[in-house]
């Protein structure tokens, strides 16, 4: 298998209509370039999993890629609503969107269980919350030692996990530093994993022994996409574009302005354009 490839080939080879996808990155290292490539390739009927759908899933939902969303917090952080997500749930535009809604704790545990090869996760969760009433995937188990009733959620096992990372080496090992989120869990829980990176280096021998590290044999494809997390950010490379997150509120509020923005900034662009967008030299 060719591990190092270009982003378009990586998506084409690994993401099919109807797949279950997890594009992860908890505020940090959100794989925007990969999401845009999926939109350009016109994937449909995807089940999208993300703790925080963020702008990337707002865009994919608004462009009609998804028919189901598994999530735990669907807002524009510090700004307000995700208008495309709301429009899909409230008005079924551009297409109806099923939602499976959890808490952060439950989804984090569900990724952990997926990585750990378990069928489900148990947690002290959802106590007194109505979420368990509207989500059939929130069940319970009884502790065989104390009799305590714990919440249970199914392990997440996406077909494809997609993450953005700081660096990969030639062999295909990947390094993630800073806010590491649930990326390791998402990759290890998934059948296939695509990683976009800021940089490819000769080797990764000089890193901290306990850094978050994905060995080459856990990764299906790696694509070099400098700036590929913009308007999210890459610790050590570029900062979060908070102004863009604020601007998204107005862009996305209206269907036409959203579609116009997507045409200019996604459909007619290429992965290489992210380097400029992130304020870095191409």
């Amino acid at each position, binding site marked *: 298998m060719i591990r190092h490839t270009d982003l378009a080939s990586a998506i084409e080879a690994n993401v099919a209509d109807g797949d279950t996808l997890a594009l992860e990155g*908890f*505020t*940090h290292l959100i794989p925007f370039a990969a999401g845009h490539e999926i939109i350009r390739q016109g994937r449909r009927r995807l089940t999208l999993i993300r*703790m*925080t759908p963020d702008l990337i899933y707002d865009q994919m939902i608004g462009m009609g890629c998804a028919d189901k969303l598994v*999530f*735990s*917090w*669907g*807002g524009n*952080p*510090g*700004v307000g*609503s*995700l208008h495309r*997500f*709301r429009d899909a*749930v*409230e008005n079924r535009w551009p297409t109806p969107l099923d939602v499976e*809604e*959890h*808490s*952060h*704790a439950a989804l*984090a*545990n569900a*990724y*952990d269980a997926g990585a750990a090869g378990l069928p489900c996760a148990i*947690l*002290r*969760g*959802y*106590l*007194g*919350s*109505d*979420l368990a009433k*509207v989500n059939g995937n929130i069940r319970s188990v009884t502790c065989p030692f104390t009799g*305590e009733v714990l919440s249970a959620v199914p392990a997440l096992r996406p077909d494809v996990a997609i993450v953005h990372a700081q660096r990969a080496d030639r062999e295909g090992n990947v390094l993630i530093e*800073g*806010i*590491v*989120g*649930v990326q*390791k*869990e998402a990759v290890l829980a998934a059948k296939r994993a695509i990683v976009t990176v800021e940089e490819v280096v000769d080797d990764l021998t000089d890193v901290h022994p306990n850094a*978050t590290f994905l060995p080459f044999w856990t990764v299906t494809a790696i694509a070099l996409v400098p700036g590929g997390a913009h308007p999210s*950010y890459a*610790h050590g490379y570029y*900062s*979060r*574009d*908070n*102004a*863009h*997150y*604020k*601007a998204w509120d107005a862009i996305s509020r209206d269907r036409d302005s959203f579609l116009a923005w997507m045409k200019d900034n996604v459909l007619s662009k290429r992965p290489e354009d992210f380097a400029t967008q992130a304020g870095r030299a191409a």
Partner: protein
Amino acid sequence: MTDYTASEIMTVVAARALRDDDVCFVGIGAPSGAANLARLTHAPNVTLIYESGTIGTRPNVLPLSIGDGELCETARTTVSVPEMFRYWLQGGRITLGFLGGAQIDRFGNLNTTVIGDYDRPKVRLPGGGGAPEIATHCGRVLIIMAQSERSFVERLDFVTSLGHGEGGEHRRQMGLHTQGPTQVFTDLCVMEPDPESRELVVTALHPGVTREAVTERTGWPARFAEALSETPAPSAHELATLRDLQERTRRAHGEAA
């Protein structure tokens, strides 16, 4: 220096509730402002934790998101998100949680999920995020919300996060040993649960606020404590520190455009 906004006094009064030895799980927005104001004034050693995994963070500007780079760069350590929710929150290591919501009821239960019916909502809100488990696992919970009849409601459309449930010993009966909401800070007043019924009772009015104003903006029959006090106005130092922080924040977020 008595010239302050309703939002400023809400933040300042909430900040005063943090203790120097608290380990505080901070949410974005008003909680983040209040928690960092506390750190920059009377609680320099408070440990601030954001759900992105950053522990002991000391941001120079307020983050826009829960995971801005500033939080990691100034943190003592950063753990994965599963570890944050498993070892630190569920593990009982957090003394204080901060929550807000679109709707609150008289027992401090919160709705951040939907307005209207869940399956065909009038307004789809962002959802629970960390809140359902922050509400049950933190030692105590502070709530910050601007007050209106629309948000302080007789009955929630959806219970996202548990407050005192149906009141009384409800939390205890569910097996919880944490305190739940101990104070609600609004732009008008401070409310605290009655020790027996756990119904929220107004214990302090902000300077210049009348009982009538509170009653009018509360969707249930507001109750007032016998020993109703007046909130001490923000001090010059508190206000200056808050405004500096917000001004630094505005500049930082604007510049990133």
